[in-house]
């Protein structure tokens, strides 16, 4: 059965591998070049100890120079999802075409057929996502040293969450496919569900997975927390107790690319004199793995539950 299952998803696996290869062919040379620029210009010192005077210009120009790689990986977060969609197709196709009637009437049980096919899809999807993680983590390393890994373009392609999203897409696709038994519509709906889920997670749920750290400091003192590598949820002008001042600038969220420092946030607090305070709500960079773990648990858990639901439905309901 393993040969049959592999033969059925061979094309899909090869397409996914080809997508990875294209990405690698672009990212690896840029990564090598970027690493050499990074060490040549001594930017590691700025990553350890950022001082605007010494690091502002070289770091800024470095980030602008390699912004393309950032963009590449921002989009490559779709790759594991697309691969998982493709890898869900062989399972749904068999239900769609009625070929499952052929397999289930050979000398194997339908349980074995279901387990083999879904295991192969899961394994290939995880492998694709893991390859992306390795590629992104390696080639983005200098950017991550400077920017941290909390912004979406690195958070979504590194750590472990890409694997979770691959499992999620696969689960949605096979579950809808088992119910609907029409391949193309099932995959399209699964992709839409994935996009909605990702936007929801990236923009709303992720920052709420752990209750954020809240810090208030005297704006003029320059002694605020280091937010360079943190996931900043909100930052505003406040009184001493951290209550937002009426009429002050609204939410002032750090952009995901460039570096910002507390002395220049929103460009205005310094002008207001000595008694202006700043308050920031954020997830510090040290919580990267904790957040990744929680998000992985939720997303991969839902994905695997859906895979199991598809397996159960196929086992019990389909004839």
């Amino acid at each position: 059965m393993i040969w049959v299952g592999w033969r059925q998803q061979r094309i899909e696996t090869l397409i996914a591998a080809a997508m990875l290869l294209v990405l690698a062919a672009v990212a690896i040379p840029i990564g090598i070049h970027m690493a050499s620029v990074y060490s040549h210009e001594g930017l590691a010192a700025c990553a350890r100890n950022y001082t605007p005077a010494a690091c502002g210009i070289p770091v800024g120009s470095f980030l602008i120079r390699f912004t393309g790689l950032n963009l590449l990986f921002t989009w490559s977060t779709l790759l594991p999802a697309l691969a998982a969609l493709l890898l869900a197709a062989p399972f749904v196709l068999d239900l769609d075409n009625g070929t499952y009637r052929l397999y289930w009437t050979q000398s194997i049980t339908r349980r074995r057929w279901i387990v083999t096919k879904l295991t192969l899809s899961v394994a290939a999807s995880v492998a694709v996502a893991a390859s992306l993680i390795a590629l992104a983590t390696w080639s983005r390393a200098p950017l991550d040293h400077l920017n941290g890994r909390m912004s979406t373009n690195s958070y979504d392609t590194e750590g472990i969450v890409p694997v979770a999203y691959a499992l999620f897409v696969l689960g949605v696709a096979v579950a809808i496919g088992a119910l609907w038994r029409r391949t193309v519509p099932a995959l399209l709906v699964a992709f839409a569900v994935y996009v909605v889920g990702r936007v929801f997670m990236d923009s709303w749920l992720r920052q709420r997975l752990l209750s954020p750290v809240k810090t208030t400091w005297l704006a003029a003192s320059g002694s605020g927390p280091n937010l360079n590598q943190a996931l900043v949820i909100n930052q505003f002008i406040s009184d001493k107790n951290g209550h937002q001042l009426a009429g002050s600038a609204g939410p002032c969220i750090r952009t995901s690319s460039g570096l910002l420092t507390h002395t220049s946030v929103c460009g205005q607090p310094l002008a207001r004199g000595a008694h202006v305070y700043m308050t920031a709500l954020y997830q510090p960079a040290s919580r990267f793995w904790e957040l990744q773990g929680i998000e992985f648990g939720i997303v991969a858990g839902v994905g695997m539950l859906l895979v199991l639901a598809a397996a159960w439905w196929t086992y019990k309901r389909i004839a």
Partner: protein
Amino acid sequence: MNDSPALEATALGKRYGSNWALRDCTLTIPAGSVTALVGPNGAGKTTLLQLAVGLIEPASGAISVLGHDPRAEPLAVLPRVGFVAQDHPLPRRFTIGETLRLGRELNSSWDDAIAERRVDELGLSRRQRVGTLSGGQQAQVALTLALAKRPELLLLDEPVASLDPLARREFLTGVLQAVTETGITVVLSSHIVADLERICDQLIILAKGRTQLVGPIEEILGGHRLLTGPRTDAAAVARVHQVIRESHTERQTTLLVRANGHVYDACWETHEVDLEEIVLAYLGMTSAAARVVAPAAVAR
């Protein structure tokens, strides 16, 4: 092999929602027979065959295939049964060679020699993709997969419905060849009666989810007569024989009867009837009273 019948259904029923696809079906298919399962579309033929191979579960009653319950003991049934589903589904991306490998991988009793010989006889290349074959060739490849398992029972669901007459003839010849070579038991469903007489010796007529007639074709042909006579009431005949269908013109009455012994009444002219006419007569009537089970088929 053992003495159990190839297939035995007891009060078997399958329901989809409130609709009975098959109801109260009791029949026995003896080992070594070639049975035609005949009925219009939606009669329950596919349901019966899918129950036999464990693709679906009975809503009521029981089915035993080669002595085992196909749902409870799939591995006692599946390796011994060859099944070709309606529209003979095959993985279209596979080549013929890969399709044979599929059969070898998934069947412990696979016989490569049978498969190779049949593919050669069909004149197919191992490298050809299944998706590029004609409907008739695909049906033949599906039959090859089923036969190379060396099954004791071959179940074919509407195998020739989508084929042109030539392909239909070739397919049935392939089945017949397997029957003469191995003595395999065959059940094949069809809504076309023509061609079946050539290879089948048992008949099951299904309509609206119920069996209308079960028995050896020879006895069915011998037991049915067409009576024509002056226009009268059929009641007198119906007391002795079972009237399957009656039709009247202004001066003449025609009865198709399942004769209970000889028809002695001199006012009736008796004729033999062919199988197609008998089938049509049974399908024309659907009242529960028409249900009969030929005792010979059950007792054998």
